[in-house]
């Protein structure tokens, strides 16, 4: 193990280390903790210039209540859900199939198609912006959730294919060969043999794609406007414009906007990290 386990050091070093971690963590998260602190203060504190002193009263419930009941925030949150969940389903379904095709079959151009997905996945968004916006307008999907979902599914398929294909490659080939010898149809091999083995990859990808899409801002701004279809990342800017200088409400709004992926991460931590670090060890 590297560095040398702290247990092999002196008693003093161990205590220092153990007390140092929370301090470093506090510093690391300080900008965020500050916002959380702001979000429970009453608005009067800010007009009085009391930014960092004790809150004159605890107004957490009041502030968050305002965010949930007196603003468009619930609507933006719902939009985010309605954009994110179909994208996850679509991208995972498509990439299970492409990953299967590229991971199992040997045919000419296999590696080229694979590299097309990988390369496309690295492309800067801006080169897609004008044509994709144009296409979405032509399809009559500008400013709809559907327009965003279709693009996200397509783009995420690149990353997901990379992930799925490498995962399927690592599965034991004998299983598939044995099924073929038995005369099992290819789609049945996919459905009954390979898909059940892909469960961990599907879980990992779902969590990752959920976070990526939930946090998307660029495409939300390019393809939507207004509260009826914008997700929360774009909505928070309108929210802030509405409550300009009300730091207690803007802070509470930011916390609410950030929360769903955070909850997802803590609930599905193992899968999340497995997905993120795929390939980090050989």
């Amino acid at each position, binding site marked *: 193990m590297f560095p040398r386990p702290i247990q092999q050091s002196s008693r003093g070093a161990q205590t220092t280390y153990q007390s140092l971690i929370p301090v470093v963590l506090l510093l690391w998260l300080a900008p965020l903790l500050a916002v959380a602190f702001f979000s429970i203060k009453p608005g009067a504190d800010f007009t009085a210039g009391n930014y960092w002193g004790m809150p004159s009263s605890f107004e957490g419930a009041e502030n968050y209540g305002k965010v949930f009941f007196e603003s468009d925030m619930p609507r933006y949150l719902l939009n985010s859900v309605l954009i994110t969940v179909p994208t996850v389903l679509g991208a995972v379904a498509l990439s299970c199939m492409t990953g299967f095709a590229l991971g199992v079959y040997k045919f000419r151009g296999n590696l080229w198609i694979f590299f097309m997905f990988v390369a496309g996945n690295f492309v800067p968004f*801006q080169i897609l912006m004008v044509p994709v916006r144009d296409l979405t307008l032509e399809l009559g999907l500008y400013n709809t959730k559907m327009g965003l979902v279709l693009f996200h599914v397509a783009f995420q398929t690149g990353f997901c294919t990379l992930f799925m294909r490498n995962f399927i490659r690592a599965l034991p080939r004998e299983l598939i060969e044995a099924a073929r010898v038995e005369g099992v149809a290819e789609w049945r091999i996919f459905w009954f043999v390979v898909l059940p083995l892909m469960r961990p990859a599907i879980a990992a990808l779902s969590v990752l794609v959920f976070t990526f899409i939930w946090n998307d801002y660029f495409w939300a701004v390019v393809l939507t406007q207004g509260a009826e279809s914008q997700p929360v990342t774009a909505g928070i800017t309108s929210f802030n414009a509405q409550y300009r200088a009300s730091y207690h409400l803007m802070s509470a709004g930011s916390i609410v906007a950030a929360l769903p992926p955070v909850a997802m991460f803590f609930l599905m931590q193992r899968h999340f990290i497995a997905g993120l670090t795929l390939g980090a060890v050989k």
Partner: protein
Amino acid sequence: MTTATLPDTHADEGGPGWVRRNRMRLAPLMFLAPGVLFFLVYVIFPVLESFQISFYRWDGLGAREFIGLENYRELSTDPAFEVSLVNNLKWLLLYLLAIPGGLFIALFLNQTVTGIRIYKSLFFFPFVISQVVVGLVFTWFYDPTFGLLNVTLEAIGLGPVNVLGDPRLATYGIIAAGLWPQIAYCMILYLTGLNAVDPEQVEAARLDGAKRWRMLWFVILPQLRPATFIAFVVTIIGALRSFDLISIMTNGGPFGSTRVLSFYMFEKALSEYGFRMGYGAAIAVVLFMIMLLFIGYFLWSMWRQERMP
């Protein structure tokens, strides 16, 4: 007498027999078709179309007018483009600090003490939050009147600094905000990598008297190469995609000093300054060409790995 002849099923006439015989060739096609189709329509063709649009003058609605290389000629004398390009280089270079930063925190946390799992998750926290919220959080962090940064500076007797209001500092301030989640990402990559380091090699090196920096450099880092490669890939992509933070924190200002190519492109093509789709596409093409250098390198590395047994 009529002889009832069964219809002769030729091999290549279609039908279930043909499907059965060619199933190993058909199956991958069927599985690939939907994904490839989507990807072509929304990713590959748009890239090519952007190249095409960059040779036109177009407001996004009316007719396109072919003007050849005029957009690129204009770029070469556009001072805002130059600022954006220089800022992109700053992003690329400084963003790479996330790699040693992440390694450093990973080494600090790679211990087995009580509660370490929770600590690791909490250190990773900034990566899960959207860049929009990171941008807001850091805007307030830098605020000259009440921001945590200036409160701290004041406490040690230093004057207030308006990071985002100062054209010389603003870009660095945004990059620092971007480094926060990026360091977290690199940290988690290295933590996973460190987990897989071969303990026998470490012990052997220890017996040979290798310590700290020498050990890290000659024994640990070579084993962390896959993690470093991925950290490098995601950091480069992150640096070139930077848009959210700039849009939230400064909106390109003050005086356009924090623009990068991706932001300037958006501004030219979609913002109130007029819909100059052709000019925007030309900026995007330049950004794409920079990215292409890296994409080429990534694919080449992957291709070498594929050929290894």
